[in-house]
């Protein structure tokens, strides 16, 4: 059976919400940006006018100001965005129980089962767009297709507030002439690889022999070839179906560059504390720890290593992170941002191989759980590691509550 899948993308989401709350900003180029003082001064989102002036997401605010002198920069308010995101989902939920979020402002909706109630995909898309406009005051672009990949592609084709339909009959005319990097998961490096092999459009990719693609790109070659041909059978997850967590991580761009092991240790502990607390909250333990390091030239890499056993202790995670760091970083440049991640997860109630030589971890586990409870009741800063007080400006952030937006993967 041919499915009816919608992909709804809320246009210039952060900027639209800010403009809705501040009517005086309408008609001006607006960007939502991070905190310049805290060195997170990059553009997170922009409205149409700022976009026309050439402002790009991810560039520094000062760069954007040079291109667009009248640019109004507003700080982000994630609580507000999450609320709008939730309300938008509530609207989608009137048309299907299969809704899968892809980041905060995008969702797939499988409306196959409700077309006899609400009309075909295009009609449902129209209704959703009207309701977004009338009930929330924001606009969305909707792509309608029979698979998730083309639905997403469609929502990017006409903006703002428009519906694009891609059918098995017209996709060769509509999708194939597009540049290959428009396809989900064709990023900068894949694009370069494909371009080197004279693949410039999605059509080029679709027509290329799968075996040749597999030779150059591995398994990816086959996946991308399927995407380009509309052969993506992946289902839209059911609403409320929690995605299975594969790893838990936190990262931060620090207010000043980190210059020695001591600095890194402080940050590693703050991050490990948060990762450990989140693991405990989800009832998980990790067996692998990974550190992500980005230097002040924005070169970044990740290294990972196994723990001796499974753990949800900040102590173990931070120690492993520091061990990895010392092994792999030579301090040729100061560090701009650091991340710690626990992967290879196991549920807490399972059986574990105990460590013969390590002291019993139960006491430490009790201690950290108690800290969790204290923080829950009295706030994150009510109890801290002594070391944190060495440099409160550096450690004065709470990765667990400061950041609520986690990037998601298409393959889960």
């Amino acid at each position, binding site marked *: 059976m041919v499915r009816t899948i919608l992909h709804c993308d809320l246009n210039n989401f952060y900027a639209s919400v800010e403009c*809705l*709350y*501040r*009517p*005086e900003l309408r008609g001006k180029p607006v960007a939502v940006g991070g905190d310049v003082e805290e060195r997170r001064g990059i553009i997170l989102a922009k409205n149409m006018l700022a976009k026309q002036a050439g402002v790009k997401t991810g560039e520094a605010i000062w760069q954007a100001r040079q291109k667009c002198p009248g640019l109004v920069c507003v700080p982000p308010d994630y609580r507000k965005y999450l609320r*709008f995101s939730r*309300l938008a989902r509530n609207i989608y939920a009137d048309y299907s129980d299969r809704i899968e979020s892809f980041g905060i402002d995008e969702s797939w909706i499988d409306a196959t089962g409700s077309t006899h109630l609400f009309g075909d995909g295009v009609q449902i898309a129209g209704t959703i767009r009207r309701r977004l406009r*009338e*009930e*929330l*005051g*924001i606009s969305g672009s909707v792509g309608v297709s029979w698979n998730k990949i083309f639905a997403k592609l469609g929502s990017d084709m006409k903006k703002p507030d428009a519906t694009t339909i891609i059918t098995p009959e017209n996709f060769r005319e509509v999708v194939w002439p597009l540049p290959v990097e428009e396809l989900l998961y064709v990023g900068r490096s894949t694009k370069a690889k494909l371009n080197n092999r004279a693949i410039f459009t999605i059509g080029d990719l679709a027509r290329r022999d799968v075996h040749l693609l597999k030779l150059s790109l591995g398994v990816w070659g086959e996946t991308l070839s399927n995407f380009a041909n509309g052969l993506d059978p992946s289902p839209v997850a059911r609403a409320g179906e929690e995605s299975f967590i594969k790893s838990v991580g936190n990262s931060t761009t620090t207010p000043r560059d980190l210059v020695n092991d001591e600095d890194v240790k402080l940050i590693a502990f703050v991050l490990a504390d948060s990762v450990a607390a989140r693991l405990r909250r989800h009832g998980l333990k990790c067996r692998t720890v990974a550190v992500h390091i980005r230097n002040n030239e924005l070169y970044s890499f990740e290294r990972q290593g196994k723990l001796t056993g499974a753990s949800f202790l900040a102590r173990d995670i931070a120690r492993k992170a520091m061990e990895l760091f010392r092994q792999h970083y030579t301090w040729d440049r100061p560090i701009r941002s650091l991340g710690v991640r626990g992967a290879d997860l196991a549920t807490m109630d399972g059986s574990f191989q105990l460590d013969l030589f390590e002291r019993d971890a139960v006491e430490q586990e009790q201690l950290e759980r108690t800290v969790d409870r204290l923080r829950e009741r009295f706030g994150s800063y009510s109890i801290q590691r002594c070391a944190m007080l060495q440099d409160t400006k550096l450690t004065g952030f709470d990765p667990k509550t400061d950041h609520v937006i986690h990037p998601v993967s298409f393959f889960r």
Partner: protein
Amino acid sequence: MEKTFVTVTAEHDPSGKTKPLWLNWTDGKQYEIDRVTDVRQAPALKGGGMGMRYTCKIRGKEVYLFEDEGRWFVEGKNSS
């Protein structure tokens, strides 16, 4: 147009419905809400913001009264 936050006297019935009865303006004047003709979620395009929009008849005039996360406001204009 500015949005003005106001004090509202409302009736909450057991089913969870809210019915605003009196609008208490910033200068202390009270206005009885004669009728609520429509309730829906909507953006406040003039004043900025979004919330439950109560279309109220007050002294023959139609007024949009918004409730946004527990705070009530009216769009624009100083009292009638």
